[in-house]
């Protein structure tokens, strides 16, 4: 039995969800929408977030049946031990790949903007090392780390939005349904958005967090609040980027939100160059997402061996490093990101669907059994 001290508070739970989901990929997010759906990209992003909400609810439903059990245990209860172990290890590998892609995306941003001379291997190595060191700690520390970094993500984000807002053009975000875009195209675009690795990482952090929160009954409420914060941040950031640049310019930018920070100008001399401040923002959002992904991969594997994740922090480090450094450039990286995103998304969807069906079925059976 876990003591109260070892458990995560509701606030920490929300912070973990928000920090893990808002990641470095937000920088390129408006581009996916703009290239495929024009101004309807904003709507597509929103639909993507609604899909994300549905998945969030699915996971909350699955875990609500067994609030004290971790991912591996739940899978085993539903699918049996052998299959459960295979699935859990499979997911562990899936998150190694997804997180490596994010690590590389982070490194690409760094290499193009800030650390131009530093070899990418070094940036990747340092990042993996930092995250591995943090993974040595328990989930409680994970909660505290996210709790601490939460304001560093929200405040600069809101500041960026409010500073860029005045230079936005109303006509750039209209029409809502796009020019010459079919509804199915908008929907496909929203799928392209929701498959991005950072959404998937945010989603699965729930499996880590829920067995360890103080009051599992409030998991649903926390999930909804977390989702609202995520939606607000991502939608505001996307909309402002569209409003300032317009679709045609966004198509031309690799990281439109990063370019947004370069268009902001304040008259006060020491604040003229706000880039530095926003770099802090990207580093932290990147770090928290990568940390979560790393933890998911390690924890799932540890669970399947009935161990604590703190024992194996370096187990996957070489894998992360090697996968992250295979890419040559961001063009290759983003192509791969879409491919792997679609595959893992399909796997995740099918697993969650199976689990939801089994959970509902079991609930119904227990409901039928109780009156007898």
């Amino acid at each position: 039995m876990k003591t109260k001290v070892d458990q995560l508070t509701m606030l920490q739970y929300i912070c973990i969800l928000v920090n893990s989901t808002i990641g470095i990929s937000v920088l390129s997010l408006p581009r996916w929408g703009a290239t495929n759906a024009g101004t309807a990209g904003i709507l597509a992003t929103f639909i993507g977030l609604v899909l994300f909400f549905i998945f969030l609810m699915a996971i909350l439903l699955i875990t609500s049946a067994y609030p004290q059990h971790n991912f591996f245990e739940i899978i085993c209860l539903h699918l049996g031990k052998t299959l459960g172990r295979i699935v859990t290890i499979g997911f562990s590998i899936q998150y190694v790949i997804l997180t490596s892609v994010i690590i590389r995306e982070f490194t690409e941003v760094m290499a193009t903007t800030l650390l131009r001379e530093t070899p990418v291997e070094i940036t990747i190595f340092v990042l993996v090392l930092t995250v591995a060191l943090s993974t040595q700690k328990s989930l409680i520390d994970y909660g505290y780390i996210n709790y601490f970094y939460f304001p560093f993500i929200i405040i600069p984000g809101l500041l960026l939005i409010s500073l860029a807002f005045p230079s936005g053009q109303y006509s750039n975000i209209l029409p809502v349904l796009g020019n010459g875009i079919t509804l199915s195209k908008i929907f496909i675009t929203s799928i392209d958005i929701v498959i991005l690795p950072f959404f998937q990482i945010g989603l699965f952090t729930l499996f880590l967090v829920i067995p360890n929160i103080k009051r599992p009954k409030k998991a649903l409420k926390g999930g909804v609040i977390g989702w609202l914060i995520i939606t607000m941040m991502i939608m505001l950031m996307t909309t402002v980027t569209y409003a300032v640049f317009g679709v045609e310019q966004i198509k031309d930018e690799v990281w439109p939100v990063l370019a947004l920070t370069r268009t902001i100008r304040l008259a006060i001399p020491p604040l003229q160059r706000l880039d530095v401040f926003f770099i802090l923002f990207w580093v932290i959002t990147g770090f928290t997402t990568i940390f979560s992904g790393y933890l998911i991969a390690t924890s799932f594997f540890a669970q399947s061996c009935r161990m604590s994740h703190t024992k194996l922090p370096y187990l996957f480090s070489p894998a992360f490093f090697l996968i992250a450094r295979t890419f040559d450039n961001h063009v290759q990286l983003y192509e791969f990101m879409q491919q792997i995103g679609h595959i893992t998304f399909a796997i995740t969807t099918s697993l969650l669907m199976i689990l939801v069906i089994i959970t509902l079925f079991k609930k119904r059976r227990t409901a039928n059994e109780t009156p007898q």
Partner: protein
Amino acid sequence: MKRRNKIMCIIVVTCLLLLSGCWDQVEIELRATIVGLAIDQADHHEIEEDYITHPEYRSANIEGLYKMTAQLAVPGQVALGPEEGAEGGAVDDNVWIVEGYGYTIGDAIQSMQQKLAHELFFGHLQVIIVSEEVAKEGLATIDDYFQRRNEIRRTVWLAVAKGDAAATMAVSPKLEQIPAIYLSTTLDHAVELGKFPEKRLGDFWVNQKSLGEEAMLPYIEVHDNNIRMSGMACFKGAKMVNLIEPYQVVIYNAVTGFNPSGANIMFPIDDGHILAMSRNRDVEYQIKLDKGLPKIDLHVSVDAEIREKSAFAIEINRAEDVERLNHHTEKIMEKDTKLFLQHMQQNQIDIFGFGERVRAKLPQYWDKHVQTNANWQQLFSQITININYDINFERIGIKSD
């Protein structure tokens, strides 16, 4: 345990030494900081001496010849804050001029780099000036280079100069130590004073790519060792096609509802003139489909201030006089705006962004009939634009009549 600590110590110290990010460390003195760039057209003769990025035989098919002039800030020479003592450093001491020639911008910059010991640094770039000739040839190749480099800010000023761009950048007034910085300050203040809309490098790219709005850039010329704002250069795609006069820029600002305002316009009234300054502008658009064509109704509200009247006969000391003045100036502005709009429609240059509004408000019409920028420019010349002013003199000044 002790041994483990020792090993940890060694690892930590090695990491500290190896991972401290020394790759990207650059001393400030070892940077060639560019503050201003001027781009002119060069002739073949000049380029032939400056092949850098390719062998001579491969240059046959490349079009465009550029001469780049960079103004570098000399570290240590530029005083921070006001200069002390009577002997200020001459402009020639504060800046260093480097020239480069090439077939593209990157080529020309490389040729400049070839003449410098330190690496060129664009992070402090304030202003890019292109000559009218280059602007008329098109700025597409220029865009690519500057957009690809991350350190160049989108708030850099891009301006078109009449005549020689390098000469324009070299104009050295007494107020600033570095001519390029004076130039960018001039442009900054011009916006604050309402002389022209804020069209920086980033805005230029956005407008140039947008389907329903053409780009504009400030147009400057040298007037006896001074920089004169001579209007705005209009672009069609990436090529400069037209020039609008300063008084037309004021109308442009009114039509787009740009603030801060502060432009002065002279209005003839009775036997004299009134000089009015706008204080605040506001514009409302109504876009409807009328007989198969978009119809735009503009309602511009301006809060104005009387700065000067030229004749004694003009009376403005009664409420009805001011009211009369409001109506009178509204009529004149409506006429001027109509003329200006007609002129732009004839040239098929939509600098006002009407197309963007049509795309936003009438998406079905746009999808069916317009779709591209070229189609819109053609359609722009056919549409009806009604303009209606509401000028309100809020301030009269401290003189009573």
